[in-house]
């Protein structure tokens, strides 16, 4: 074997469209982030553009309107999440609520740690995890996959056996990643590390594509090693926040909530309008950002920086003396 025949490390950079193309009807996917932060929106939008359907979608422990959007666009058959909404922006996701009430989606009823227990079981190669939370509630009545059993230790306490929950792909939004798939969150990591462990394959959208040497400066920060795909996506969580980079776009989120509220009341027009304008309309993520506009994007960066004393929070968390 000669030196120039030595195999090179595999590079995994892809576009959002290429990442979404890995998903076909009927698959199970995980969408990371938390409520109004760090959702991989370029991939979410591409999935809708492709018209993929019958998905089982696993949201985060407090899933946001990125899941609501997938439901409203008709991509979802089954939902695994203990909450869908955006707190004060929308206490309940409108499309989620409408689809659940009309029985257009199946809801795998759970709570936060029931979700984590199932993901952990998969990540550890076990058939189930035991957890006491949810005992005595309606959750095991509504979700027949959860089995109530009595502790084998003989103390008479009841537990839930939470079966393993896996996924074909998990999609996440991080601060930066290198071409080999080493991804680092900047700021909070939410539940992303556990969610990623339960997925057979992982794709990350990253605010910045950075050299491997930059990752090596602090390998402890590598929260998702060896992602299968890395999508460079500046402002990739818009309209939601990305820790370390920018605030959520309150105005855009409110417009989405208004459109989805009309959808819930049976008026498809405004929601279709939102999809046309913001999801299927823009040719790609760059075109989407162009439509959002540079002034708005800079304003969201400033709003973040005003509190964090600059981008890239871990090096610049403030001392509180503002």
């Amino acid at each position: 074997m000669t030196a120039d025949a030595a195999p090179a490390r595999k590079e995994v950079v892809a576009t959002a469209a290429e990442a979404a193309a890995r998903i076909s009807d009927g698959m199970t996917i995980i969408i990371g982030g938390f409520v109004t932060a760090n959702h991989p929106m370029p991939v979410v939008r591409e999935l809708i553009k492709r018209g993929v359907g019958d998905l089982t979608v696993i949201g985060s422990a407090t899933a946001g309107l990125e899941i609501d959007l997938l439901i409203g666009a008709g991509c979802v058959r089954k939902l695994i999440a203990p909450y869908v909404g955006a707190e004060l922006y929308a206490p309940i996701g409108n499309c989620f609520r409408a689809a659940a009430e009309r029985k257009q989606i199946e809801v795998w009823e759970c709570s936060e740690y029931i979700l984590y227990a199932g993901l952990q079981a998969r990540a550890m190669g076990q058939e189930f995890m035991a957890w006491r939370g949810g005992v005595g509630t309606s959750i095991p009545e509504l979700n027949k996959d959860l089995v109530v059993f009595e502790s084998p230790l003989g103390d008479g306490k009841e537990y839930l056996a939470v079966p393993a929950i896996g996924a074909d792909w998990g999609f996440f939004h991080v601060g930066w990643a290198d071409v080999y798939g080493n991804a680092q969150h900047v700021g909070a990591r939410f539940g992303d590390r556990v969610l990623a462990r339960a997925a057979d394959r992982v794709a990350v959208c990253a605010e910045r594509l950075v050299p491997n040497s930059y990752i090596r400066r602090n390998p402890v920060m590598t929260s998702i090693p060896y992602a299968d795909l890395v999508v460079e996506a500046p402002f990739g969580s818009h309209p939601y926040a990305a820790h370390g980079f920018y605030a959520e776009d309150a105005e855009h989120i409110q417009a989405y909530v208004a459109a989805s509220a009309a959808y819930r009341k049976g008026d498809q027009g405004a929601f279709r309008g939102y999809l046309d304008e913001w999801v299927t309309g823009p040719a790609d993520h760059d075109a989407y950002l162009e439509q959002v506009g540079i002034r708005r994007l800079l304003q969201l960066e400033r709003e973040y920086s005003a509190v964090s004393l600059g981008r890239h929070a871990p090096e610049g968390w403030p001392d509180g003396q503002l």
Partner: protein
Amino acid sequence: MSQPPAWSWKEMMAVFFARQIRDGDTLCSGAHTEISFCAAMLAQKSHAPNLRLQLGGTGFLCNLAGRPVSGGVPKTSVDYRIAQWAEGYFDHPETFLFYGPPGGGRRYYTDRDAYADHNGYFFADHFFVGGLQVDYHGNVNLIGLGGDGTFTMRGPGSVGIGDVITVRNMFVFMTAHDRRRFVERVDYISTMGPSGWREKQFPGNGPQWIVSPLGVFDFTGEGMTARLRAVFPGHTEAEITEATGFPVHRSELFEQIPPPDAGELSLLRDEVDVTGVLR
């Protein structure tokens, strides 16, 4: 004609919560509401600088004592503003690794003072839960309205309120008080009332209070049922009886709750709720 009170119902609730928090307690604020966030921040800035506080859902451990609240109260449970007061952090799933009470048994819950010198974060002396419905037994419902697996109204989901099995005191807080919300029996149970916690032998105590814009219930009734503990200033017992779908009887511990005093209000308005979201 009577003057409108010099404080809002949200401010009254925040002040009530803050008064229940003792220095050295642990608190997880859970999902975002401006009321619970303000209450925790107010307590830490006034009388509880040693409050060990997980503010919001992402696992930032915060101490605000002597630190300014610039830009206002965080808008969401993942608002990056929370990090400006943080001195610790854990991934959200790791929050569940802070659940084992000191000693491992029930003693923490029956003799909290025996652990007064512990400085660890452990989940939690206080936790806030909201609900679509709450009932006479303190069961809380975030799943939806209807029954038998059907929904006339689908709720947001149970989040983690059924998971907090080691909590010492859960505040059930309702931001409106009427017979659709205060019911004899909830349609679905996201987390049980205190008698359910005892029956299922959970380590913690579960709900200890129901707090609404009108007043406060405890669970001193027979079989740990709800009893009227206090009426907030400006409201009446008759008003609460009219708005409640279960029998309203006074608690043996019924008390008068004073309105927010000048010191509480100025601290709340000038140093916590600087943008006036509670007004």
